[in-house]
């Protein structure tokens, strides 16, 4: 089995562009289970149920491989030298995800299937039944269902594997241009070797880890989309080394290129890469920027044997009908989820759907939800929402009385048709701002001028007037787009100029300097010289930072603006404060000189530049503030609130930056003002992380023991499975924790993981930012490992696939671009808010139904079996059955199957409205109260009692007595009929007691089954059928001679009451003394109509917290856009061609 995955990074490049790459398998990431995730374009055909795959077999294999690779300290490879590279026996590039071929299918598949305990158990039973001395029943009662189950599963496995074969073929046979012996040849991906030089065209998928050599773009830049890696749809820039970039497009140069790469062996660290490239004896260091890293979707699946399957095996009285019924119930309940109109999203016409064969009862037991942010909580759309210019707030609509009007889809939009360059997708509702800007208000104009100038956005103009912006962060894109629509259109840039259209007039600004953003500065400035020769500094940044650097004359304006900022913060908007400063020409000259010196200085360059920036960015004039909305999906805060009430912990795992994640945390109501503390773990060393986690924990829970209390227990089949559980610790107050990817990497190490888990589990909210897909999966697994809780992961992108697969239940958000998450998920729907319905309504019902089903099923079968046990004392332990063989065959399949199926498909304790009204109703599921060990013991004890009644009462009634005509009644056949009628009536009444929700179907099935019993009995014991096969129906006449006796019926009534009354009395007493939340709600539901859906209220929070600033929170592209090399290397072509068709709206 090839232990590699399909990489799925996509290059975006302008049409006709190309680049040369150096393939290097060295960056293969490893995954424990050997599952492979093909590229987006292929995933559609590969949505097989990898999740439920068991893998002792494959696990061993990958273990072995792991070991081998562990020994590999580093990799050495040489370009254009296949012989040299082959000597290392690196893995080839072919992918195999399929499990079987034609010959191995039958044996392997049967082996796999019989590894499932349930199947093996039934096979064992079947063998037992074939031994005449042992068999008390015909062998076909087990064989027929077993063969049926096996063949259906085999057919499904076969079709899955055929798909995988097709998929592999498609991936392996995709062609790529490879440079072999100085010529470009089309090769199939599977034949590409480590060390080959390949040429990729625009929009091709990267199917191996590659080192960038050169690009057709200026500056050897390549833009790659890494949505599959970190969920960010904006393009990332990769730049080749100059030494290799110089080779350009020259095939000859590349063919003679003989660089050697020495690098780290395959690992799963996404954001780090270390290696050296040696060309002509000169060593160059390689870092992440030069490598097109492949994705790290980790498919670690734990083959999970569920509690139910243990139950199946541990009980020797379980018929195959349990197995079949459970499948039917799961299927039925998943269909109800699919059919739910309240989970249907009309906008993109998607309903919810199940994708895999799932355990939907686990939906009712979720304790932890792991959520992606982008695309899941948020729509991944940034909109310029409001602004405050010169003390006046825009963007808010008020009616005549000054009340805020809620903006809906019907609110009239501002018409931007006067501006031919306007982005038609931009929506704004406040007309006054347009009027003001068109009137020529100077403050408003300079406000937008700033937005059009101060950024690092790259424009692309395909056709005249069709502008697309490529922004490093969507916030920036939103701001520039806003400026564009208000008449200040950013059109193109060169390293030295920025061209904008100011109200239809083309103005070219000279770009003097870019004072780039970084995390410390929290601001960005540009210094531009207008055609009139005026030099101005434009600055935007976080409010606190800018406010310190304003001219005192702005004080009044600052006050007003602060009010506005608070208001925006309260609305959860991301704000930026804009300021400008006119610069004196002579001062500018002198500053530029110093700037040049500083930027070429060898030591202390950073500090010197910093000082210069500080010096010039002061005494600025406040222009205003912007508010950008990271649009949440509908109903997200409410859903989170409801889920929190249901005691479900939500952890956000996002590839986003810390600030973005924090912002969303606040706007989703996960982080709240009133929280006692929000811990931020961002240390860069293991010790630092440990210290931060510890101090957070001590603060939350000073009394807690230093060492975590891990209780080890054994569970599962024969108690072979060892489980470790970290107990929940009580914490007063509400806390939250933010941890970033770097710290998380340390925290997930073995010695720190318990510390992380303890601290994180004490917090109400945990947000992990900057995490890789693998880390997402690791976090999920950590919780799974130590909390023994059911987990759910929800996400929309390929970067979420790993955690979706790692969690018990994976949910994909559909309808967005990319289907990977959806395809690997168990459930998918269009909106995050449907999660509430999925869990609180469907999940709860599914759990309730499954538990009721299991409880009832075990009750009826235990009772049935225990009766035989008691009879054993009276028949010389000869395994004589109490009941007629026909009854035994039909008991589970005909007489009792349909009522319990109806129960487990239709039962509702309270309807959906009440379920969402009281999220606390969800809690019993999390503690697995309905099918815990205790519940199981209770039902066993009760079955025991019932069986005693069901055996000894008929026994006593029939013992040494006779019929009313003196003839036999204590004969075996009469007793069998008597006892089985008692049993069936008792279990039917028990069913009636368990049914909370009597639909027509329930009635039909319960009464129908009883009627069927009598009909079948009378038929099988009739003369006619006896005469046909006398030996098969020896009970002839029994029913006529037995069921017409009054004392038989009196006894049946007696047994029924003896079995039912204790239950009724017990339930009544419990309901009176200690009513559960369910009882209370059910009582209320009887008296009151269901609660109406609450009207949607705009969530308005009162918050004094300054919301985050709208920046990409990493170093900007300032260097790049002003790079001098930029000019030296190539003549400036039309820069607008540089970027592909990505618009801010898409990002």
């Amino acid at each position: 089995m090839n232990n590699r995955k399909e990489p799925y990074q996509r290059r975006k490049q302008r049409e006709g562009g190309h680049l040369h790459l150096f393939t290097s398998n060295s960056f293969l990431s490893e995954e424990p289970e050997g599952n492979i995730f093909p590229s987006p374009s292929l995933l559609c055909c590969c949505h097989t149920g990898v999740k439920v795959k068991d893998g002792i077999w494959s696990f061993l294999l990958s273990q072995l491989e792991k070991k081998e690779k562990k020994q590999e300290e580093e990799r050495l490879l040489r370009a254009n030298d296949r012989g040299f590279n082959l000597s290392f026996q690196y893995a080839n590039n072919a992918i195999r995800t399929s499990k079987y071929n034609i010959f191995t299918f039958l044996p392997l598949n049967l082996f796999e299937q019989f590894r499932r305990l349930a199947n093996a158990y039934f096979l064992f039973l079947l063998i037992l039944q074939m031994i005449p001395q042992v068999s008390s029943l015909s062998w076909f009662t087990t064989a027929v269902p077993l063969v049926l189950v096996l063949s259906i599963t085999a057919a499904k496995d076969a079709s899955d594997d055929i798909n995988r074969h097709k998929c592999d073929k498609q991936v392996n046979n995709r062609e790529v241009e490879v440079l072999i012996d100085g010529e470009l040849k089309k090769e199939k991906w599977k034949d590409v070797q480590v060390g080959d030089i390949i040429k990729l065209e625009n929009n091709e998928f990267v199917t191996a880890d590659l080192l960038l050599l050169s690009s057709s773009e200026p500056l050897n830049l390549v833009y790659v989309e890494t949505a599959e890696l970190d969920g960010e749809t904006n393009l990332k820039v990769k730049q080749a080394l100059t030494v290799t970039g110089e080779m350009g497009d020259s095939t000859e140069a590349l063919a003679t290129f003989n660089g050697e790469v020495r690098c780290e062996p395959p690992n799963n660290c996404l954001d780090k890469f270390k290696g050296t490239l040696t060309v002509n004896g000169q060593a160059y260091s390689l870092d992440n920027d030069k490598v097109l890293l492949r994705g790290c979707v980790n498919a670690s699946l734990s083959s999970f044997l569920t509690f139910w399957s243990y139950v199946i095996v541990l009980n020797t009285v379980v018929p195959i009908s349990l197995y079949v019924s459970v499948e039917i119930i799961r299927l039925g309940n998943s269909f109800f989820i699919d059919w739910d109109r309240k989970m249907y999203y009309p906008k993109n016409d998607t309903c919810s759907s199940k994708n895999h064969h799932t355990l939907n009862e686990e939906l009712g037991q979720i304790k932890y939800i792991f959520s992606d942010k982008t695309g899941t909580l948020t729509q991944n759309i940034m909109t310029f929402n409001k602004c405050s210019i010169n003390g006046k707030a825009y963007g808010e609509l008020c009616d005549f009385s000054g009340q805020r009007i809620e903006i809906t889809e019907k609110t009239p939009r501002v018409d931007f048709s006067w501006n031919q360059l306007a982005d038609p997708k931009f929506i704004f509702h406040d007309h006054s701002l347009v009027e003001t800007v068109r009137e020529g208000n100077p403050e408003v104009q300079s406000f937008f001028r700033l937005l059009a100038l101060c950024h690092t956005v790259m424009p692309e103009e395909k056709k005249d007037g069709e502008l697309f912006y490529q922004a490093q962060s969507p916030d920036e894109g939103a701001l520039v787009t806003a400026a564009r629509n208000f008449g200040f259109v950013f059109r193109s840039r060169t390293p030295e100029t920025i061209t904008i259209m100011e109200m239809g007039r083309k103005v070219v600004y000279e770009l003097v300097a870019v004072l780039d953003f970084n995390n410390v500065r929290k601001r960005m400035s540009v210094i531009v010289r207008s055609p009139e020769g005026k030099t101005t500094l434009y600055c935007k940044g976080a409010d606190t930072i800018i406010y310190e650097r304003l001219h005192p004359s702005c004080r009044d304006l600052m006050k007003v603006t602060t009010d506005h900022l608070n208001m925006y913060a309260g609305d959860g908007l991301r704000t930026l404060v804009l300021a400008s400063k006119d610069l004196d020409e002579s001062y500018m000259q002198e500053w530029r000189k110093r700037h040049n010196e500083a930027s070429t200085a060898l030591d202390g360059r950073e500090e010197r530049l910093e000082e210069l920036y500080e010096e010039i960015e002061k005494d600025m004039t406040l222009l205003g503030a912007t508010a950008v909305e990271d649009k949440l999906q509908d109903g997200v805060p409410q859903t989170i609130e409801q889920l929190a009430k249901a005691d479900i912990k939500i952890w956000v795992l996002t590839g986003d930056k810390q600030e973005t994640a924090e912002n969303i945390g606040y706007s989703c109501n996960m982080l709240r003002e009133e929280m006692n503390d929000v811990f931020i773990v961002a240390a860069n060393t293991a010790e630092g992380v440990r210290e931060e986690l510890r101090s957070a924990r001590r603060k939350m829970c000073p009394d807690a023991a230093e060492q975590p209390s891990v209780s080890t227990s054994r569970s599962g089949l024969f108690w072979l499975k060892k489980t470790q559980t970290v107990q929940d610790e009580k914490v007063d107050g509400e806390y939250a924790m933010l941890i970033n990817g770097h710290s998380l990497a340390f925290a997930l190490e073995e010695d720190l993981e318990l510390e992380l888990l303890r601290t994180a589990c004490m917090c109400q909210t945990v947000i992990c930012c900057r995490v890789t897909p693998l880390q997402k999966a690791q976090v999920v697994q950590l919780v799974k490992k130590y909390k023994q809780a059911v987990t759910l992961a929800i996400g929309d992108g390929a970067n979420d696939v790993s955690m979706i697969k790692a969690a018990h239940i994976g949910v994909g958000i559909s309808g967005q671009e990319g289907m990977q998450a959806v395809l690997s998920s168990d459930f998918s729907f269009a909106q995050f808010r449907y999660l509430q319905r999925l869990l609180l309504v469907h999940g709860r019902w599914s759990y309730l139904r499954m538990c009721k089903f299991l409880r009832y099923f075990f009750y009826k079968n235990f009772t049935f079996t225990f009766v035989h046990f008691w009879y054993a004392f009276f028949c010389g332990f000869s395994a004589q059955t109490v009941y007629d063989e026909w009854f035994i065959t039909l008991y589970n399949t005909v007489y009792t199957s349909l009522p319990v199926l109806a129960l487990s498909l239709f039962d509702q304790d309270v309807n959906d409205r009440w379920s969402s009204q009281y999220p606390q109703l969800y809690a019993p599921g999390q503690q697995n109260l309905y099918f815990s060990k205790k519940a199981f013991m209770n039902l066993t004890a009760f079955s025991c009692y019932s069986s005693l009644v069901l055996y000894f009462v008929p026994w006593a009634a029939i013992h040494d007595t006779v019929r009313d005509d003196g003839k036999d009644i204590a004969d075996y056949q009469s007793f069998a009929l008597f006892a089985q009628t008692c049993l069936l009536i008792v279990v039917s009444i028990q069913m009636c007691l368990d049914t909370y929700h009597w639909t027509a179907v329930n009635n039909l099935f319960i009464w129908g089954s009883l009627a069927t019993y009598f009909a079948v009995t009378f038929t099988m014991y009739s003369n006619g059928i006896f005469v046909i096969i006398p030996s098969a129906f020896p009970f002839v006449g029994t029913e006529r001679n037995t069921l017409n006796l009054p004392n038989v019926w009196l006894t049946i009534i007696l047994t029924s009451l003896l079995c039912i009354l204790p239950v009724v009395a017990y339930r009544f007493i419990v309901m009176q003394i200690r009513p559960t939340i369910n009882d209370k709600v059910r009582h209320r539901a009887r008296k009151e109509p269901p609660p109406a859906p609450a009207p949607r209220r705009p969530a308005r929070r009162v918050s004094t917290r300054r919301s985050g600033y709208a920046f990409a929170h990493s170093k900007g592209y300032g260097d790049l856009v002003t790079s001098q090399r930029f000019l030296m290397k190539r003549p400036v072509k039309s820069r607008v061609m540089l970027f592909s068709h990505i618009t801010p709206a898409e990002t």
Partner: protein
Amino acid sequence: MMASSYNAKEEDGHHSGSSSHGGPGAMKSKKPDNTAFKQQRLPAWQPILTAGTVLPAFFVIGLIFIPIGIGLFVTSNNIKEFEIDYTGVEVDTPCYNCAKNFSWNSTTPCVCAVNFTLDQPFESNVYMYYGLSNFYQNHRRYVKSRDDSQLNGVESNLRQPSKECEPYRTSEGLPIAPCGAIANSLFNDTLTLYYIPPNGTKLSVPLTKKGIAWWTDKHVKFRNPGGSANLSTAFQGTAKPVNWRKPVYELDEDSENNGFINEDFIVWMRTAALPTFRKLYRIIQKKPNSTPTLSSGKYVLEIAYNYPVLSFDGRKRMILSTISWMGGKNPFLGIAYITVGSICFFLGVVLLIIHHKYDTRSNSAEIPN
């Protein structure tokens, strides 16, 4: 207290908002059908255990059960039953010698007589049973050891009995009819009853041997092979069960009660459910005049002792019993009804008290949110 619950926009069909999807010619929307079934809104009755239903139920059950129980108990008590063990385990019992000296080969049966006294006269029909104890007629291997097709007169099974009959399938190369362990162990004691009036004469009590088997057994389940013309020809080529003294076609002179349809045989073949059982042996028809069927006084039971039970520590009994509408004597049902009725009533009171004590609390209990 109410949760500020968020409910998804009503995207249901009842609301006009979704009309955009239903236009003619429009692509069929994936919107799920709005049926009560699919939306899980089937009309349903939701019963709930309330004080209003539970408490009356307990009292009513109690009030109904106690009288029924008393009725049953009285009826059972009015049944007269007399039982006598004639196994002959003790030295001083009449059948001790017969039991002790039992031999499979003896041609003349050992006869013993047991004296007993009925204290009360038995009215109406009196039923005479033989009872066996510690006889596992319900052992799995034993129960299976029969061929119902053969007993139903199927010719092929007469010649080729089912394998279930092993090891009583063939004897000296001939198929056994009736085959199997059950038939082989047919109860073959002969019981005769004599009344000793005060004058000392010995009056034979007339015993009816017909009408002791189920009608369905006699007329449906058991049939002689080859019609009933000549049984010995029909059974030609078969062997008698090894423990039998006579072949099956010589069980009785009456052709209506001979062969497989011999009622004693049929009664035996209806295997008992429990190791202690009684089987109807004879009926003593009530007399047309008003004299009791069996008047009180002395009786002698003469037993042709053929059936050995001591080897498995079994016991043999003879039972005389009258019958009521509810069958033979069995006080259990009456006592059980009285007990359950009383418990119900008592539980009803307890529940009432609990309800009074707690109901106010649970009713006013707010649902925490």
